[in-house]
């Protein structure tokens, strides 16, 4: 059994991969990172490939762009997603536009920015945020969020090898709670492909990251009331897999999206708008007015987490 932490150590960088023009860096990454995600890496790959940087997010991402532009795999860590904003300009104006603005003469596709995100129950204001929507407004980068350790390994390896800059948000809730077998071998999961993880016929539930386990519990509850839920993990937020969601909503006629992030201009609104456009005639609930609740969290987050934490402590 492996936690997400171990997975990122063992799976994120199999032997040989780091040796081949890959670099892992960020605040406190050298000793293993505050979430212990990079433990043991320095010993295996040396201080010049795995290193601490000064405490400066714009520097970390700018530096990573330069490294990646030279054909390296730059794996940058932002200690908490809450602290990614000093690097916002480097991500939005630089990484995302590097290839386009140069007419494909230069690119920083080897850049992957990892950042733990989301609520764990005691993080307060600044260790809990889900800033994914800010980045979903930016053509030129990909935004990927795994739901489990097994997914995280396959998706992270795809992100690192993808020839485009990627922002990879790791649900830190999973660092502690989620455990499952993670295959030792090198494997990749496709980007921009959502996954139906539970088939159903009455309603489509769409989410990503830590929300998936909450939605899964919700669908068990709903089943008791005779409601059959189809559960979809979006996995990649941009460019996202409209087709899978569309097909599901055409079948169920109902859509519910949940995310931890604020609802206004959240990514749920984007999904809802696109699906309404594509499935207008199939949707049984009009998505407007007071019924337009499809992008609201189904549960109050902290209550839900408190509950799951209690359950897991038992």
């Amino acid at each position, binding site marked *: 059994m492996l936690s997400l932490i171990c997975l990122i150590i063992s799976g994120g960088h199999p032997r040989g991969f780091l040796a081949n023009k890959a670099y892992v860096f960020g605040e406190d990454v050298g000793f293993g990172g505050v979430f212990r995600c990079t433990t043991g890496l320095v010993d295996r790959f040396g201080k010049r490939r795995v290193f601490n940087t000064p405490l400066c997010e714009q520097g970390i991402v700018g530096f990573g762009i330069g490294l990646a532009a030279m054909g390296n795999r730059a794996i940058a860590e932002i200690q908490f997603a809450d602290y990614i904003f000093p690097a916002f*300009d480097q991500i939005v104006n630089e990484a995302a536009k590097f290839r386009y603005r140069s007419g494909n003469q230069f690119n920083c596709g080897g850049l992957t920015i990892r950042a733990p995100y989301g609520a764990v129950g005691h993080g307060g204001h600044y260790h809990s945020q889900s800033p994914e929507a800010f980045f979903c407004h930016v053509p030129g980068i990909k935004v990927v969020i795994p739901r489990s350790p097994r997914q995280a390994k396959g998706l992270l390896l795809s992100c690192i090898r993808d020839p485009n800059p990627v922002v990879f948000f790791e649900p830190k809730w999973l660092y502690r709670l989620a455990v499952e077998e993670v295959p030792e071998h090198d494997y990749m999961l496709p980007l921009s492909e959502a996954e139906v993880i539970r088939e159903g016929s009455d309603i489509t539930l769409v989410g990503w990251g830590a929300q998936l386990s909450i939605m899964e519990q919700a669908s068990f509850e709903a089943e008791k009331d005779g409601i059959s839920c189809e559960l979809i993990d979006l996995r990649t937020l941009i460019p996202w897999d409209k087709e899978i969601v569309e097909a599901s909503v055409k079948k169920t006629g109902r859509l519910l999206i949940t995310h931890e992030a604020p609802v206004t201009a959240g990514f749920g609104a984007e999904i809802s708008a696109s699906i309404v456009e594509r499935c207008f005639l199939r949707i049984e609930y009009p998505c407007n007015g007071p019924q337009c609740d499809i992008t609201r969290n189904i549960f109050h987050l902290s209550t839900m987490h408190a509950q799951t934490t209690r359950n897991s402590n038992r």
Partner: protein
Amino acid sequence: MQQSMDFPGGRVALTSKMKFIFESSEQRIPCYRVLDDDGYPISSSGFEQVSREIAVKMYSGMVTLRNMDTIFYEAQRQGRISFYVTSFGEEAIGVASAAALSPDDIVLPQYREPGVLLWRGFTLQEFAHQCFGNKADYGKGRQMPIHYGSNKHNYFTISSPIATQLPQAVGVAYSLKMDKKDACVVTYMGDGSTSEGDFHASLNFAAVMEAPVVFICRNNGWAISTPVSEQFRSDGVVVKGQAYGIRSIRIDGNDALAVYTAIRVAREMAISEQRPILVEALTYRVGHHSTSDDSTKYRPIEEIEHWKTAQNPLARFRKWVQRNGWWSDEDESELHENVRKQLLHAIQVAEKTEKPQLSDMFTDVYDQVPSNLSEQERLLRETIKKHPQDYPSDVPI
């Protein structure tokens, strides 16, 4: 009393004297110069010998650049291109620093350094294509004029946001270091850029990572209409290096030989000692900030005139080159005529070259066009078909 003590970060002397460090030293950091105002070399300057060939190429480059600026500026005034930025008064920095580098050194520019590209062989036609944003522009017409970039010249594509190239330069330099390349990175910025967080991030990163990068700040006195007195209260930019643990020098940016000599040495140290170097080149932005600016609104015309004439970097260097017997008045007029002809031709060709095609709007966002962008392209094409009159007729569909 104990003499000194170990603190994290090293041993520090102890003192019973409470003394604040002054905000500035008594004397400003002097400025390294090789040629005096009359173009005579100052004997103690220890300048690098420059061959006739290099000297003439440097001077011709500066003259070519000035002509290019004059003619492209005019083309903008005539409405043929949308925007332009000149290097008037700062020609020596771009051209002479480029001359001091090897073609393998990687350049991350701001936007007032076309002299570097020119030195490396980017042609007047290539400059013109970019300014006209046609299909021969390597950037596929996606950016405003003057946002040049050329992979084959190791010259990263310019981006408008100020100072963003600086931390990237450190990453590029770290890559050169790890690959044990006999090359460094050279990155340019203006005085205004040094107020951006990215400037400070990059100096600090470069020092800590021991990256072979030469930072060249063109301190031309102005950031659009903001004078340096409203930009910072330090003794310019050069003093900021030491605070980050970076070796630094202040040079006369209007003295081509001083620029050439200092950059040669800076490059050598950056590579052999694997360390960053900061160079502050003092100069003056003789032109308006850009074609969108009228600098007489915020600074006296006499000041501009002084720098345009008495402190003209071309004139000073020419005196030296000509005194060496390497240049004549005939060479001068021949060059001007030649370059002007080439420029007019380049503009004509660029103007006639087709615009980039519609599909170029959607490519290169990612390595491949994802389905959401293909869908948007399809919708756009349908709309154009329905309302062709609302779309430019010169964009091939």
